[in-house]
């Protein structure tokens, strides 16, 4: 396909060293009419400072209620190639690893049915295929699913869980983040494909408190690996860091949020009982410090973007839980969490919002988790607290 539109504004965005999305669209435009019209449409948006997309209609594949975001141009006559421009969300493999063979196959199919444009990956974690038509959906699904790929979530459903690289390559991972993520993705297939929840539900799994997958900020259920035990210190390695110029007092000891470390110029020591397991020292001295003892997870619940009541970060619900493959306990816990939400939420109410309305207690009681100071930064400030009949029986 040749050049169809003059795009003086977008061309500006091909200048400069950072890889250009305009170049990407142009590349696809060499073989895709859809991508070509996308270029024209976006140029017009740049000129008019506004998008030209209509509200998405409900489109999808047979038996599934999600996985495709319907998208129609507001200017189908002017840009017929993007009259339909749906996206297809494909469940990414946990950890975003691919063989070139697999990814090439994915791309080949997409070249056949779609615009050739992708997002690798979407913000939730899906492999996002950007721009196809309604009639292409069934064959696309058949092509991918027959090769072992399934659609991701959309609508009021479980969304594709996502995770950090975890145990695969990271020495700090307290858990098999990818294993857990994959397992949960598989177990919640039905809930992902047949939206029956009050609203979306996202799971993200991080191997440690660094949270390289932003679980605590962007998932209704945030699973974070942690440990119960001491931080073992390799004093020779400490010396090595000092020798290489690290100012251990300034960079480590004084930055420890609990002030539980000390360094006398020779030996580093940690008052482990006071460590909050924030990860700072470990990240800066990975050769010298190693967690020991029991490994497990903290489950935090409720984070989301600002609509409707302001952004939420996830709240600690289960301070520590031991888990083992095939993660039945975790699956059951998440199921209970979702069940309570499903039973109580209004439509379009996320679980964090619901907990804020109902209070933590009914939620904790429903999922069978006892109160713990780990769940709060500080106790309540007002004297306005409820008593249940149970409390009187005690």
């Amino acid at each position, binding site marked *: 396909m040749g050049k169809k539109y003059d795009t003086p504004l977008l061309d500006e965005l091909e200048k400069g060293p950072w890889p250009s999305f305009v170049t*990407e669209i142009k590349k696809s435009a060499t073989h895709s009419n859809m991508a070509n019209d996308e270029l024209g449409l976006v140029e017009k948006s740049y000129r008019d400072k506004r998008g030209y997309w209509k509200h998405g209609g409900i489109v999808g*594949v*047979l038996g599934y209620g999600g996985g495709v975001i319907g998208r129609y141009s507001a200017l189908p006559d002017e840009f017929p190639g993007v009259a339909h421009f749906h996206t297809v969300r494909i469940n990414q493999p946990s950890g975003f690893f691919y063989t070139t063979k697999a990814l090439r196959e994915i791309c080949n199919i997409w070249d056949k049915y779609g615009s050739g444009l992708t997002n690798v990956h979407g913000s939730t974690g899906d492999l996002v295929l950007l721009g196809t038509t309604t009639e292409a959906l069934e064959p696309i699904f058949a092509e991918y699913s027959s090769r072992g790929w399934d659609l991701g979530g959309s609508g009021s459903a479980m969304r594709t869980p996502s995770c950090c690289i975890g145990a695969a390559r990271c020495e700090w991972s307290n858990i098999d983040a990818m294993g857990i993520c994959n397992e949960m993705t598989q177990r919640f297939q039905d809930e992902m494909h047949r939206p029956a929840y009050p609203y979306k539900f996202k799971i993200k799994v991080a191997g440690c408190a660094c949270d390289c997958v932003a679980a605590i900020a962007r998932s209704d259920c945030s699973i974070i690996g942690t440990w119960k035990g001491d931080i073992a210190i390799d004093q020779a390695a400490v010396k090595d860091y000092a020798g290489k110029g690290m100012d251990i007092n300034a960079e480590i000891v004084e930055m420890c949020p609990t002030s539980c470390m000390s360094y006398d110029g020779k030996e580093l020591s940690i008052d482990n009982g006071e460590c909050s397991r924030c990860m700072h020292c470990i990240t800066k001295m990975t050769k010298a410090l190693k967690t020991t003892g029991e490994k497990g997870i903290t489950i935090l619940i409720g984070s989301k973007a600002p609509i409707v009541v302001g952004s939420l970060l996830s709240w600690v619900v289960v301070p520590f839980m031991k888990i083992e493959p095939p993660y039945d306990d975790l699956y059951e816990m998440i199921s209970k969490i979702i069940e309570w939400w499903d039973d109580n939420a209004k439509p379009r109410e996320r679980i964090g919002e619901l907990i804020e309305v109902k209070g933590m207690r009914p939620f904790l009681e429903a999922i069978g988790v006892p109160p713990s100071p780990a769940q709060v930064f500080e106790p309540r400030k007002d004297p306005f607290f409820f008593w249940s009949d149970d409390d009187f029986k005690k």
Partner: protein
Amino acid sequence: MADLPKGWLTAEESKEKRQTDIGPPHFEQFLPPVIKKNYGDWKHHERLDAGTMVHEANSGDKVFTVRVASPRILSTITIYEMLDIADKYCDGYIRFTTRNNVEFMTPDEGKVKPLKKELKDKGFTIGGIGPRISNVVHTQGWVHCHGACTDASGLVKAMMDEFYEYFTEKELPAKVRLAVACCVNMCGAVHCSDLAVVAVHRKVPSINHEAVKNICEIPTTIGSCPTRAISPDPAKKSVKIKDEKCMYCGNCFTVCPPIDIHRPDEDGVAIVVGGKIGSARTGPKFSKLAIPFIYNNPPRWPEVIEALKNILDTYAKGARKHERMGEWIERIGWERFFSLTGIEFTYQHIDDFTFMRDTLRTSAAFKM
């Protein structure tokens, strides 16, 4: 039935081949052998430069990782280019990061240099590791979303051209995580980023009553409004909006498209700062408002870039080693952040929403 495009499965074939509820392939088959072998048994790692790190396993094995920028909107053509390189140097394995960078891995130290050379020669940008700016988490923008009130990809491109060296080379006191969202739905990380841009409206939406009547569910529409600005308009079988109560979030538009929130000439972006996600040192933090509004000025949003640069430079000058943007600001105090950056403090900065009570200053101690 019309002719199928070339190579398409027929409806019949599709029905036959399709499988449901299989989920993604198990990741194991995609793991490079060195990763598979040493899975869960890594000892430590080291950052070799802005785009390279090496992990050492307890077994003694090593894996070298080279990280490459991505515009995230990738044409299959570019992906093929990457795959060819991965075939050549990485035994046919490739990975993407949670911030959409691309990672090339090899256990063979000897391959690292030629790999990097070829990547550079082919125009790829290596970097993003360590106390730097990594890729920008962003959203669809005018490229795909009906709600977009700015373009995300364009902003990202303009930002990263400006900050390019902080990706490929120059260090900052700590990681600086950038994000862009094209509306307040914030499909990404704006709400918890060191430095981020979010598109905002500033005018009460207009209502196409005829269409509302036909398309929208009135109770849902009313219920969608965070500030209860919407009430029924029985005469018109539609809804009305109380102007003083509307803060232009567009949630009504999401559930009822004929309520049009777009005003190209009054739309633009806000800049927020100081968020973080990890629990290292200080806990996760929300981003807070730095600049309430800058007009959309495509294709390169120069005013936005300048404002971001000012904030980044001030941070780079003032922060201590390992101190994230938000940690630095909290150490010096927000009043000092505003005086150091010269950013005007406006009524918009003062929270009047859900966190109001905790953000108003209840102390006689502050910097003058």
